[in-house]
């Protein structure tokens, strides 16, 4: 594996300009002061109750995501490029979804193979021919970005279903501003607090035609036991909208209502944080108690907007991912600004053969997996693990893709032994409404806290950092 790109230090001893002031501040600040603020930050997180649940963990149902107080910094110039690339990518994702559920030009052109769509469990035939307001399918996208050098931004994966983590972006900033006012005074950091407003505006802009001029928006959560429940309640609060569960909603005459203390009230837009499968027991999983019976018929009747739309999984599927550069080209006629990680599709015999020969050097991921579960990191795995994985791969090659192990960039991070470089990624949140796409400058930086580790997922011991875009 190549030497990781260090976002702060230039080999030879110089600092990258964006980090100069931070480095000066770190030299002036005694380690005890930093340590004290770390503890304070943890206390704040616990008191505010910013926790998440780890499934299958009986020890404690609520855990804190470790927060690292050293910010991750990017220059305004870098951000401008990244922002342009993200907008391009999300536009292509939306056009792809519109096409897949309508004309299917891209299949006829032979760019994406048919069976990858039609035999894909996340393809929703219910969406065929379904109109969605302003042709927006992915209202909220979380695009995972990594860097391996100073020039390029690489997309690790697109999250087009119910991406989470934005509450950490907002809370991390709040807590940093509380703990390090002096550090902020020495930088010009672009603010992120507009996000809830922009999200609400985007959601209201896609209300169905039958809605009143003041559409009612609600956030649908699976409930308090969901791992991202804190985020759901946080966002509902910031947006000033009701946080509803399936049992709070009823469908009558193809309209959706919520039960209130004053009777039934119509809902026009649902920002849903419930997966497709659980939305409506009459259409999808009949055993789901999280959903709303009849929701899909109200959706088909055009009386409710779901954000994100149903069936967006077909765009962020890891097998489709490998076609993204072609998809961008096809719809926009532009060169993709953001790169893809080179990807071997194990469904293709030639690729499979290569992957089987090089398992020790590759990262192999399940096409439908998420959260860092079920993947093989070749260089870090034992021989036995690799062999077991090989059998799995041979049995069901179409379920996997493989990528080279990327040397994710590093940022200085607090560790038991003082500041040390740790690998990071970045998830910016891209909003699309009737008036186009907006992105607040920044996103959620996730950091692999274990030395050498490349897994940044919070469910696997990753932490988060505040992300600063400098306003030059």
């Amino acid at each position, binding site marked *: 594996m190549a030497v990781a790109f260090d976002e702060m230090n230039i080999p030879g001893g110089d600092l990258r300009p964006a980090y100069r002031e931070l480095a000066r501040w770190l030299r002036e600040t005694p380690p005890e002061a930093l340590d004290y603020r770390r503890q304070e930050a943890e206390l704040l997180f*616990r*008191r*505010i*109750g910013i926790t998440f649940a780890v499934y299958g963990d009986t020890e404690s149902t609520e855990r804190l995501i470790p927060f690292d107080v050293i910010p991750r910094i990017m220059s305004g110039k870098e951000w401008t490029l990244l922002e342009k690339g993200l907008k391009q990518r999300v536009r292509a994702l939306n056009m792809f979804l519109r096409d897949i559920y309508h004309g299917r030009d891209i299949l006829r052109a032979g760019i994406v193979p048919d069976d990858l769509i039609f035999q894909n469990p996340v393809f929703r035939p219910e969406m065929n021919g379904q109109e969605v307001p302003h042709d927006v399918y992915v209202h909220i996208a979380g695009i995972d970005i990594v860097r391996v050098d100073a020039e390029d931004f690489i997309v690790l994966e697109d999250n087009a279903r119910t991406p989470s983590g934005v509450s950490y972006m907002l809370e991390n900033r709040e807590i940093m501003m509380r703990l390090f006012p002096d550090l902020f005074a020495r930088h010009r950091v672009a603010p992120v607090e507009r996000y809830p407003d922009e999200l609400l505006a985007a959601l209201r802009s896609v209300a169905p035609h039958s809605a009143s001029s003041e559409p009612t928006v609600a956030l649908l959560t699976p*409930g*308090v036991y969901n791992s991202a*429940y804190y985020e759901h*309640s*946080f966002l*509902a*609060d910031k947006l000033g909208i*009701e*946080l*509803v*569960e399936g*049992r*709070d909603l009823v469908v009558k005459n193809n309209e959706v209502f*919520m*039960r*209130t*203390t*004053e009777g039934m009230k119509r809902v026009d837009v649902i920002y849903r944080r419930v997966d497709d499968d659980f939305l409506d027991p009459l259409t999808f999983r009949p055993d789901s108690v999280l959903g709303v019976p009849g929701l899909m018929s109200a959706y088909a009747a055009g009386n409710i907007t779901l954000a994100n739309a149903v069936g967006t999984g077909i765009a962020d599927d890891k097998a489709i991912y490998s076609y993204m550069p072609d998809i961008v080209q096809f719809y926009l006629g532009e060169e993709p600004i953001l790169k893809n990680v080179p990807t071997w599709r194990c469904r293709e015999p030639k690729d499979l053969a290569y992957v089987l020969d090089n398992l020790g050097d590759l990262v192999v991921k399940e096409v439908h997996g998420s959260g860092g579960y079920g993947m093989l990191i070749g260089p870090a795995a034992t021989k036995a693990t690799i062999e077991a994985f090989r059998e799995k791969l041979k049995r069901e090659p179409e379920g996997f893709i493989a990528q080279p192990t990327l040397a994710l960039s590093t940022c200085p991070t607090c560790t038991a032994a003082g500041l040390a470089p740790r690998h990071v990624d970045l998830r910016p949140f891209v909003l699309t409404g009737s008036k186009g796409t907006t992105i607040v400058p920044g996103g959620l930086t996730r950091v692999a806290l274990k030395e050498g580790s490349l897994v940044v997922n919070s469910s696997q011991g990753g932490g988060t950092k505040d992300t600063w875009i400098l306003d030059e």
Partner: protein
Amino acid sequence: MLSRTAENLYWLARYVERAEYLARTIDATLRVTALPAAYVGKTNEWDSALLTAGVAASFYQAYEEANEDNVVEYLSFSPNNPSSIRNCIEAARLNSRSVRTALTSEMWDTINSAWIELQAVWSKGTSTREDLAKFLRFVQETSLRFDGSAYRTMLRNDAYWFSRMGVHLERADNTARILDVKYHVLLPEAEHVGGPLDFYQWSSILRSVSALTAYHWVYRETLKPWLIADLLILNDTLPRSLASCYGNLVRNLDQIGVAYGRQGPAQRHARGIRNRLEHSNMNDIFQHGVHEFIQEFIADNSRLGEIITKQYLI
């Protein structure tokens, strides 16, 4: 607002109020039982603590005898007692989490901090009386903080009124239950025997509704059972009296009625109970039987709970 949100706010307030009431009951019982036997008589005060908490039946399924150790354990910490203080705080936290958007950050912080302390400090219960005293103070302070932050930080809208209704309905139930268990020591005949034994019984009743000092300010008299009953039932200046609770319930329900532009059975039922309290005097109540009066009140009060649930919460 969402019916489920209103329901959670209402129950959240009830759980916190109940936790405080249990803490007061334990505290008052500890004081009486610490007295020499000559002052307390032969009644088992721990047994009546269970009765006032309404959990005697389930307690005796698990224990043979009611004594300090096992009653304190059962009322404070037992996971098997659905309304132990621990379970009240757990339930309050779960309800708070479900309605975080309707709580102010101060209210959330109170409940969340209490829940964290419950786990960090009190997970093993208490081993000494000093510890127990500290625990009971912690519970009462949590309730005070919760009430205070609700009062000082909540918008005066339906969320606030539903939460206050939870407080007053629970409070009325608690006060009525003490009277229900202890009414016999308040009967006029008992005045003849008004020895030291009764004095401590009476002061214990007042203490469990934090009204001992209030009594002296209101009546400027030595403790008289007649007046104690008057204070707890009819005196609307005492926040824990039945009359005061119903004054507040009627007001909160009216505020909701005005905000929503319509009234319903809950408003009518609450007014009915308040009118009865307003037009009663202790003479009549003693004539017709304190016990019957209280039992009828408890039934009426819980019926109001059901009506509110039906009208607003489901």
